[in-house]
C-alpha cells in the first residue's frame, strides 16, 4: 500500500529506539504490527482479550496491552518491546533479576512480566518512590503465569524496585 486511504495510513513512530515511517492498515492491531510486520516475536499472543498480559509492550514507558490497541495510534509515540531491553550481549537488570530469582519457567509470560516490571521501575524512578509489595502485586495483576505461582516473579520485581 502506497498512499493514505481509508485502508492504510502513513505514520511515524519509534520502536526500540529506531524510527519507522510506514503505511499501516487502519484496522490493524498493534500486536500484529509488532509481530507480523516488524518481526518482533518476543511479544506474545495469548488471550487477545486484555486478560493475560503476554502481549504487553511499553508505550512511552508505560505498559499497555498491544492486543487491544490500534496500530495507527502509535503515531508520534515510542514503543519498547522485550527486544529493546537488552543491548547486544548485555541483559537489562529486570531480565537478570528474573533469571536470578527463578522467575522464568516456560517463559511464555516472561516478556510481558518484564514489561510490567519495567513500567513500574520507570514510574517509581520518576516519582522517587519505592512501591510497596502490595503495589507490586497490583502492578502485576494484568499478567497471568501458568507456571511459577507468582512468588518468584514478585520477588524479582521487589529486588529491582527496591534498588
Amino acid at each position, binding site marked *: 500500500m502506497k498512499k493514505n486511504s481509508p485502508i492504510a495510513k502513513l505514520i511515524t513512530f519509534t520502536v526500540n529506539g529506531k524510527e519507522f515511517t510506514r503505511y499501516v492498515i487502519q*484496522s490493524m492491531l498493534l500486536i500484529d504490527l509488532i509481530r507480523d510486520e516488524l518481526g518482533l516475536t518476543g511479544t506474545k499472543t495469548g488471550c487477545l482479550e486484555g486478560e493475560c498480559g503476554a502481549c504487553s509492550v511499553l508505550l512511552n514507558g508505560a505498559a499497555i496491552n498491544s492486543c487491544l490497541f490500534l496500530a495507527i495510534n502509535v503515531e508520534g509515540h515510542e514503543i519498547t518491546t522485550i527486544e529493546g531491553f537488552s543491548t547486544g550481549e548485555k541483559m537489562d537488570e529486570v531480565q537478570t533479576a528474573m533469571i536470578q530469582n527463578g522467575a522464568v519457567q516456560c517463559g511464555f509470560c516472561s516478556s510481558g512480566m518484564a514489561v510490567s516490571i519495567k513500567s513500574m521501575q520507570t514510574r517509581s524512578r520518576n516519582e522517587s518512590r519505592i512501591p510497596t509489595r502490595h503495589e507490586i502485586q497490583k502492578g502485576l495483576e*494484568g499478567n497471568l503465569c501458568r507456571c511459577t505461582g507468582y512468588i518468584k516473579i514478585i520477588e524479582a520485581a521487589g529486588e529491582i524496585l527496591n534498588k
Partner: protein
Amino acid sequence: MKFNVISPKTKTDLLKAMKNETYFRFGAGYTDLIPEMKKMEDIGYSIINLAQLNDQTFRNIKRGQDVIRIGTLATAAQIVNDEFIAENFPVLHQAANCLASSQIRQVATVGGNLCTASPSGDISCALVSIQAQCEILSESGNLRLIPIADFFIGPRKTSMKNNEILRSVIVPINVKHHEVHSGFLKVGTRRSMECSVVSLAYHILTDKKAIIHKAGIAIGAVAPTIRYAEEAGNFLLGKNISSIHPDDSELFANEVLKYASPISDLRASAWYRSEVLFNISKSILE
C-alpha cells in the same frame, strides 16, 4: 476485523467527521470496542478515532472554583494519579484504581466507561454517587448538560443521540469544612480484571460534629443500569456517622436493596448478589 478509521486532530475536524459519516462509532481506549468488534462478522460502520484528538477540554482534568471538569478522554490512570481527586473523591479514585489491570487503566477512558453504559462500569458507578453532570456536544457544536442519572436509560443504552459525543463530566466540589467519608467497594469473582458481581459507591459528607449533610449512594451490577439509591442516601441525612445504631445500618442496607433487581448469571446468582449488597451496605456504616 476490517473497518474504516477517521482520526480527527481538532474539534473542528471531529464535528466535520460526525456530520459526514452516516454510520460510525467513536473509539477512545478501545478496551470495550475491540473485543466487541472482534465478535462481528462484518463491521458496518466507520470508527471516529478519538485517540489522536488534540483537544484539552476532552483530555484534561481541570479544577475550577466550584467544579472539576473531567475530559472524557482522561484515562483511568489519569484519575488514579490526580491528587485532588484522591483526597476529595476517594470513591472515584478507588473505582478507577480497581478497574481491570494497570495495562488497561493506562488506556481505558472515562468516556468509554460511561458510554458503554455497562451496569458494572466502575468509574460510572462512582460518578453516579457524586452526582456528576454529563456535558454532551452535538455535531453542530451545541452543548447540553444533563445529570448523570438521566444519562443511563437502559442496559448499554444512554440518552445520547447519534450525532452527539460526550465531552466532559462535571463534578461539583465538596462543600468546604466538610469531612469526606467516601469509597468504592467491589466484589468480583477475582480480585481485579473481572467486571464486578456487586459494587457499591458511597460519597458521604459530614460536618465537624459528624452529622451527615449529604449522602450519595450508587450500586452497580445488580440492576439493568447503575442505580442512584436516593432514598438510602436520604435515610442517612441528619444522622451522626460515628454512632449509627446497628438497626439503622440494617434499615439503610434495606433501602439500598430496594434499588437492586439482581439477576443470576455466569458470575453469580441473584440471591448471592443481594446478600453481598446487603452486607457491604451495612459495612460502610460500621
